[in-house]
């Protein structure tokens, strides 16, 4: 309540929207992140370097370029965008869903990196041992690999969440800067700085961004340690 009074409706909606966009972006991309990280860490196949390159592309491309590519693909007239619209009524262009997609794509390489490192740290010999005991591949993953990489998955998720909270270039290019619809925290800060006298409102949002970022960092440390303790059993 106090928070809502302290912030203007525009500011409040930007904070709420950013949390919503980042949360959905993180939660929905997590299974894909784990799957891609697993494939990259454990399998040798033709085209592995291509997959690796595509995953890392958003990290090295200018964000504006990524946003524009998203617009071409997932826009109303884009190949994938028009299909999803007709088949499922799912629209990305100029909606918060598009902001979530942009955030997910931009955060994906960081998430995959963290999880892949965790998977590579798991001795494949343990997975072999599980298989000799009759476990199917799915059971091996669920009972051996996943529990052991959980700290890495948590770290990857929180890293992705933090990246999603700060995403700017791809979002503004793909879904524009519509207050209440696609204006996330960074876009709101940018907009306030564009109008005379908006500095103080921007400063308030900056403060909130810092608090959220630090909270995410502490949470990740705490969860990581708790999970590691559970695994080692000490």
């Amino acid at each position: 309540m106090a928070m809502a009074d302290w912030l203007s409706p525009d500011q409040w909606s930007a904070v709420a929207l950013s949390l919503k966009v980042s949360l959905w972006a993180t939660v929905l991309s997590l299974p894909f992140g784990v799957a891609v990280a697993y494939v990259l860490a454990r399998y040798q196949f033709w085209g592995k370097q291509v997959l690796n390159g595509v995953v890392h592309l958003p990290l090295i491309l200018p964000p504006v370029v990524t946003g524009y590519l998203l617009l071409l693909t997932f826009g109303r007239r884009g190949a994938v965008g028009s299909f999803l619209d007709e088949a499922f009524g799912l629209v990305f262009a100029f909606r918060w869903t598009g902001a979530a997609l942009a955030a997910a794509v931009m955060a994906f390489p960081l998430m995959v990196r963290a999880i892949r490192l965790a998977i590579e740290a798991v001795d494949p010999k343990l997975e072999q041992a599980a298989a000799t005991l009759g476990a199917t591949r799915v059971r091996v993953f669920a009972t051996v690999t996943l529990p052991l990489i959980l700290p890495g998955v948590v770290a990857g998720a929180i890293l992705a969440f933090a990246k999603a909270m700060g995403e700017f270039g791809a979002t503004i290019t793909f879904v524009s800067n519509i207050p209440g619809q696609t204006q996330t925290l960074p876009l709101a800060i940018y907009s306030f700085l564009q109008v005379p006298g908006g500095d103080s409102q921007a400063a308030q949002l900056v403060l909130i961004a810092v608090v959220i970022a630090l909270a995410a960092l502490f949470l990740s440390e705490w969860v990581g340690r708790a999970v590691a303790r559970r695994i080692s059993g000490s």
Partner: protein
Amino acid sequence: MSLSVRLAHRFGDFALDVSFDAPAGVTALFGRSGSGKTSVVNAVAGLLRPQAGRIVVDDRVLFDSDERIFVPVHHRSLGYVFQEGRLFPHMSVRQNLVYGAPSRDAHSGPEFDRVVATLGIENLLQRRPGALSGGEKQRVAIGRALLARPRLLLMDEPLAALDDHRKAEILPYLERLRAESDIPILYVSHTMAEVARLATTLVLMEAGRVVRAGPAAEILSDPDSVPALGLRTAGASLHAVVAAQEEDGLTRLEASCGVLLLPRIEAAVGARISVRILAQDVILSRTRPEGLSALNILPAVVTAVRLGDGPGAIIQLRAGEDVLLARVTRRSALALELEVGVDCFAILKSVAVAQSEVGVAG
């Protein structure tokens, strides 16, 4: 119960070309590191898919390259005990033990209790693997493999990572396992003492090939296999019954060739044991020696002589119903005129026999 393995596989410069059949009991793969033993076990487990071959366990074809049969690892009904245990670090000992257990009985019923009691790990069930000693880890790993109700038990140097004390702790469990269960066991080792105690069938490997395969007792007492087994570790096993525990710390044994006195053996009077006598610990004499400190003087007949390329010779002897090997110099073999059919005496210092060479007769 039988095991039939035929396989060919190339890894770069290394070619594996192996073929052997084994009846029930413990089949030991023996050879230097790098001779391909682990690859054979991994092929039987399904962790390695050979380029060609056929692997059959009890009439069940696990692999046949011609018929394109390859049963995946998790359908092979195995128990695999690895050199490093490979316990799951995030699970308790109990959770590790029942990971492969197919039924409730194996989870908590009499079967579980029996395996846990046999291995002496009742007090470890709530612990994590990180809090176990090397010997405890290996016992848990053996229990985990057994509770999966395997049709075939694979053991890849299960004792190699342990010190002598821990080995001595686990070997009796393996001997009991051989006696009490009818699961065929494929056992990899490069330690002669272990192989001599456990193996019913021996497969000698060298550079990816089988140099010799057959009944263990036969191969171990054959002078011709000594070079492959190693001069310093060659030796044959005597079978004996514990007759008495003497007051001066010796144990009196009755073998078919006579009485043996050895340093205290922890076994009940009447127990049947086997004692491996190293070829290099045996001295030969044509006449019964007198005034000698050695306590064991056994009458024997020379059954084979193998003169080595170097200064040594290996003499095979029949002592009662057992076979002995003696390693002497060529010079002595010629001077004593040791030839097939010659009577002589095998002399053995009591203290030469190490505890690790004494096992349960199988």
